[in-house]
């Protein structure tokens, strides 16, 4: 029986499909992380604005994305927004949109934290050598903030990778779904399939996320002094 179980992984194109599923998972996560990071930096800059209204709106945006589950967002965008605007978007695209927006919210908070943690005299000494507002951010603040936010950002990234399994609700086949397809196909004949398939997926996730968290630890240590 045990042998039979692991054999499920090597039938036909199973491994290839698991790999494709993994790429879907990782692809959606990484594209979203990248877009989300850029949006998040903008968001973080906005959140340091002195305008109360801007602050309020940004805060609201963050809380809305924090509290409303991602699944709901996927439903809203995939079924609701595309229908209301009468456009068609692929599930993958919607997934990227939703995860990017979520990433932007969370990343914005991380960036804000990083910017606020910079000593005030950095701003002043930047000004004192005549840097313009943008020069100040471009050369002085953002490069320093990036270092401080990296651990948090990478942490967020692993969370995003792990959350992608929800996209199956809008018809995108991620690695977990592929796994379930394989398991279910073998439901009657190979009951131990689930152990092997989930075991493999567990390892695959670990393979993606572990280097990330290792990297964050490394950078954290490197930039500590």
């Amino acid at each position: 029986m045990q042998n039979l179980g692991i054999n499920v992984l090597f039938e036909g194109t199973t491994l290839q499909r698991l790999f494709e599923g993994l790429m879907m998972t990782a692809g959606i996560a990484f594209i979203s992380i990248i877009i989300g990071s850029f949006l998040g930096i903008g968001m973080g800059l906005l959140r340091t604005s002195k305008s109360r209204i801007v602050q309020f709106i940004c805060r609201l945006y963050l809380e809305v994305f924090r509290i409303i589950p991602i699944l709901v967002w996927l439903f809203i965008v995939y079924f609701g927004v595309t229908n209301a605007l009468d456009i068609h978007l692929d599930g993958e695209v919607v997934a990227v949109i939703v995860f990017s927006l979520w990433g932007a919210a969370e990343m914005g908070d991380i960036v804000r934290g990083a910017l606020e943690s910079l000593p005030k005299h950095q701003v002043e000494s930047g000004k004192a050598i005549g840097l313009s507002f943008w020069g100040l951010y471009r050369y002085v603040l953002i490069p320093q903030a990036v270092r401080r936010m990296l651990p948090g950002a990478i942490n967020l990234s692993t969370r995003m990778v792990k959350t992608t399994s929800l996209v199956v609700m809008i018809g995108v086949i991620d690695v977990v779904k592929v796994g379930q397809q394989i398991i279910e196909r073998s439901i009657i004949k190979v009951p131990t399939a689930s152990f092997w398939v989930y075991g493999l997926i567990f390892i695959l996730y670990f393979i993606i996320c572990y280097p990330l968290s290792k990297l964050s630890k490394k950078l954290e240590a490197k930039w500590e002094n």
Partner: protein
Amino acid sequence: MNKENHQVLLEIKDLHKEYDTRTVLDGIHLRVHKGEVIVVLGPSGCGKSTLLRCLNGLESIQGGDIQFDGESLVGSNVDWQKTRQKIGMVFQNYDLFPHMTVIENILLGPIKVQKREKKEVMEQAAQLLEKVGLSDRKDSYPRQLSGGQKQRIAIVRALCMNPEIMLFDEVTAALDPEMVREVLDVILGLAKQGMTMMIVTHEMGFAQAVADRILFIDEGRVCEISEPKEFFTNPKTERAQQFLNIFQF
């Protein structure tokens, strides 16, 4: 000290500065001539830092006028970015940018702000580094430097913009005595070369040695302005006498 005859570089007239409703600077008058070194003394919280920060536009002012090089620094249409290039400032906290090497720190202003030629700036930087004895630390990061070295680099960074006046705000307050000396020696050197400077310091020996005039401030007002010898041996006001007593055991 006949610098009084020189051209007036900076003129402060009846300067008022308030935080919320608290008056911090209450009618400061001062004329700084080209090449003159003014040391600002006064008890903690009297407004010394605030005065320097106002000159550099880091604080808005509530009344009076500041004339720099014949132009007013008051009002909303002052081009601070341009003005700050002519006014170098070094703070107490080592304010180097920690993510850049020494030379990157120095080049940032001249190249990105003043749009000067890299080669020319590099030469100037090399000269200045030589002068402060740090030619070999060009590619170090600030964290690899001692406090005194950091402050000397900060001075070079400011000088490399070719400012017309330098403002120093307790640049040695957080340093060990030997490092204090390193930094103060650099400033003494600048004084000899005729740099116009305003210096806030707590080193009385240094103040006496470097100053053309001492400006003693108390509670936001100018209490006394006199030559150093006179100030230290024979202060006019009782407040100044009290202040000097602190340093006597």
